[in-house]
């Protein structure tokens, strides 16, 4: 089976048994890898009754198809589970080096089942796996955990995916951290790992990946490498990273501020990528095989928290733990908050949004110091924000309320549900649908809940569109977005399955050459995009299987209140027009929200149509 090792590791934590299982070849061909393939496995293993923190809920981690190869920017790997945070389908993907090393270790994926009675970690090297005691690691933060495991094997190239205290404490949006600060961030995959008492998975290997035509692959990947390196997006990302978007976010009104009620905080420019490059950056670093090198190494010599060498925070964290709470922070504090969240190991988007919602409620007078344990949550109170990060990580005090997320907070304090800025239980990332109307459709329809990676339509509306993808760039406030969003979601599901970073624009002919040379398939771009569509519809079907219906595809009222005199110019997305158009294109039932039987069958998923009761 070229392009794959042909096996996945099944770890039954209840009885401490590890077994190799042949990779399901049909699933691999249809769903390719990473979150797509993981979700297909998950579909067979969970239902509405599955307790997300019970032994029956699996945690499935899978590399992208091209992870570990010489292709450009092919580091992305992913995972899927029934989310303990949202209660339905959850997935996440990450970059860095773990996915490539998992592939090098000889596996196409890992499925964690059951529950261990004591803390353990799993070590995999060159096709062999063992369960090890993790008593000495339990309680340690994600940075220390990674360091200690690398030290145990005297090998800095061991890649570790681990949880921190937040997931040990079952914070529902606890994440899985690898290569220091790179995480499967959303939907609480770390919390599921914590419930199984698995502290970490460590991988290392040099197992040769079977390839149909290695020479042809090398040739195609060399060409693709040059294309990626010379692209305009790559150049800018290399210079200023994701934080480079902050200045544009201020101009466009894309960065939500004071919990979605104010124009983007102009002071956020102090922590932008441009500012980082000019004042703090000493080096850059890269994920596996990536010529872009968008990750910033900073030196912070002024402010309350000093760092000699630290990785710079990404855009999402800088805004969620910044402007969203009205925080006018300096770089020192921004880095400190990022390090705090990473060390505890929790999602900076959902946590930042939950903390910001608490600020909002406090400023409305709905909650007071009595509720917050004495914290004064006036907009911009940095010390209070830092204390909240600690409390969330420890799942204690008022932090335990924030760990439940905005949806539960609105319920707890008797607030309108439309005040909690989330869909399907997952908080909006830091791209405001009032700045880019396409993001309204993206957030409303993404299978796991508000998800800017499926797809990053604000990129398209900013003029960044793959030249080979047939998507028209229209005005960012136009309401003709449905077809573009559908195509973009299908494409992003494909690139996620392949393990390709969103910032790498690889021409389709080179992409096809790489895939065919690796797998021996004789595929076409139409077939690959169909796989992207299949994956998206299957994930949607899984959401529906776990209780999601059409009524969950809505935007909260607070996030569609106009903000005049901002970069949004008072615009709001016309969901009444766009959503029905989107449903028609997707062929989803207007009430149940399920993909139709015809649709699922046309995508070669008749068994899912039957299981789902699709009409």
């Amino acid at each position: 089976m070229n392009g794959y090792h042909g096996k996945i590791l099944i770890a039954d934590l209840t009885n401490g048994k590890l077994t190799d299982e042949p990779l399901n070849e049909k699933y691999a061909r249809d769903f390719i890898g990473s979150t797509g393939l993981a979700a297909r496995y998950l579909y067979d293993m969970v239902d509405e009754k599955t307790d997300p923190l019970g032994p029956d809920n699996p945690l499935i981690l899978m590399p992208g198809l091209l992870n570990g190869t010489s292709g450009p920017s092919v580091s992305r790997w992913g995972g899927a589970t029934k989310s303990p945070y949202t209660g339905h389908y959850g997935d996440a993907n990450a970059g860095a080096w773990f996915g490539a090393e998992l592939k090098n270790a000889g596996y196409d994926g890992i499925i964690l089942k059951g529950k261990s009675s004591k803390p353990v970690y799993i070590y995999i090297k060159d096709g062999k796996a063992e369960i090890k005691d993790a008593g000495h690691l339990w309680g340690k933060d994600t940075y220390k955990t990674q360091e200690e495991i690398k030290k145990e094997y005297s090998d800095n190239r061991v890649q570790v995916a681990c949880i921190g205290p937040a997931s040990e404490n079952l914070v529902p949006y606890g994440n899985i951290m690898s290569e220091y600060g790179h995480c499967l961030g959303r939907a609480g995959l770390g919390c599921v790992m914590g419930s199984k008492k698995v502290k970490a998975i460590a991988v290392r290997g040099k197992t040769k990946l079977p390839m149909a035509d290695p020479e042809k692959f090398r040739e195609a990947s060399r060409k693709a490498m040059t294309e990626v390196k010379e692209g305009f997006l790559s150049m800018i990302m290399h210079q200023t990273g994701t934080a480079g978007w902050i200045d544009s976010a201020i101009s466009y009104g894309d960065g939500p501020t004071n919990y979605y009620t104010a124009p983007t905080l102009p002071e956020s420019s102090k922590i932008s990528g441009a500012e980082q490059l000019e004042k703090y950056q000493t080096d850059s670093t890269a994920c596996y095989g990536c010529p872009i090198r968008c990750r910033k190494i900073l030196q912070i010599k002024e402010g309350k928290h000093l760092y000699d060498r630290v990785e710079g925070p990404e855009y999402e964290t800088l805004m969620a733990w910044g402007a969203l709470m009205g925080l006018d922070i300096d770089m020192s504090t921004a880095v400190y908050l990022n390090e705090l969240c990473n060390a505890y190991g929790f999602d900076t988007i959902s946590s930042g949004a939950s903390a910001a919602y608490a600020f909002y409620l406090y400023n409305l007078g709905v909650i007071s110091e009595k509720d917050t344990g004495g914290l004064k949550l006036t907009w911009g109170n940095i010390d209070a924000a830092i204390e909240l990060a600690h409390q969330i990580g420890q799942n204690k005090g008022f932090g335990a309320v924030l760990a439940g997320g905005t949806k539960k907070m609105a319920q707890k304090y008797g607030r309108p549900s439309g005040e909690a800025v989330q869909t399907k239980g997952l908080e909006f990332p830091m791209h405001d649908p009032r700045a880019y109307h396409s993001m309204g459709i993206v957030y409303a329809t993404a299978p796991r809940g508000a998800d800017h990676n499926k797809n990053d339509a604000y990129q398209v509306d900013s003029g960044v569109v793959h030249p080979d993808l047939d998507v028209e760039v229209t005005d960012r406030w136009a309401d003709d977005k449905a077809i573009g969003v559908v195509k973009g979601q299908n494409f992003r599901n494909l690139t996620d399955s392949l393990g390709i970073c969103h910032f790498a624009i690889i021409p389709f002919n080179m992409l096809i050459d790489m895939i065919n040379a690796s797998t021996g398939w004789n595929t076409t771009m139409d077939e690959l995009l169909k796989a992207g569509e299949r994956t998206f519809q299957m994930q949607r079907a899984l959401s529906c299987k776990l209780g999601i219906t059409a009524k969950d595809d809505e935007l909260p009222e607070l996030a569609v209140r106009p903000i005049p005199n901002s970069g949004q110019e008072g615009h709001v997305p016309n969901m009444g027009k766009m959503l029905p158009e989107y449903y028609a294109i997707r062929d989803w039932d207007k009430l149940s929200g399920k993909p139709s039987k015809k649709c699922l069958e046309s995508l070669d998923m008749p068994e899912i149509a039957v299981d789902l009761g699709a009409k």
Partner: protein
Amino acid sequence: MPAININFIGPWRVLLGARTVTVKVESIDEARNYVETNFGPVFEKKIKSMGVGKKQSIWDNSNILLNGKNIKLHEQITFKDGDKLDLLPKVAGG
């Protein structure tokens, strides 16, 4: 001829080494010519130092806001004194 401010936003500021320039131009075409003529060589030198061989246009790789509002690149606009033209690199991500 009206004097307008051209602002290089975010990464442009770093790549082109300028935050704001005040120039006398009447139309979008003239603004474009000014930017490409005066900053094109700076940009070209910068990208060569990054090992990139392809020639790139500043203007074509920008989104443009006039006084904070979106404009289309082909729009025919006549400037007035004090107008503010923001050039944002046509990139997004994060």
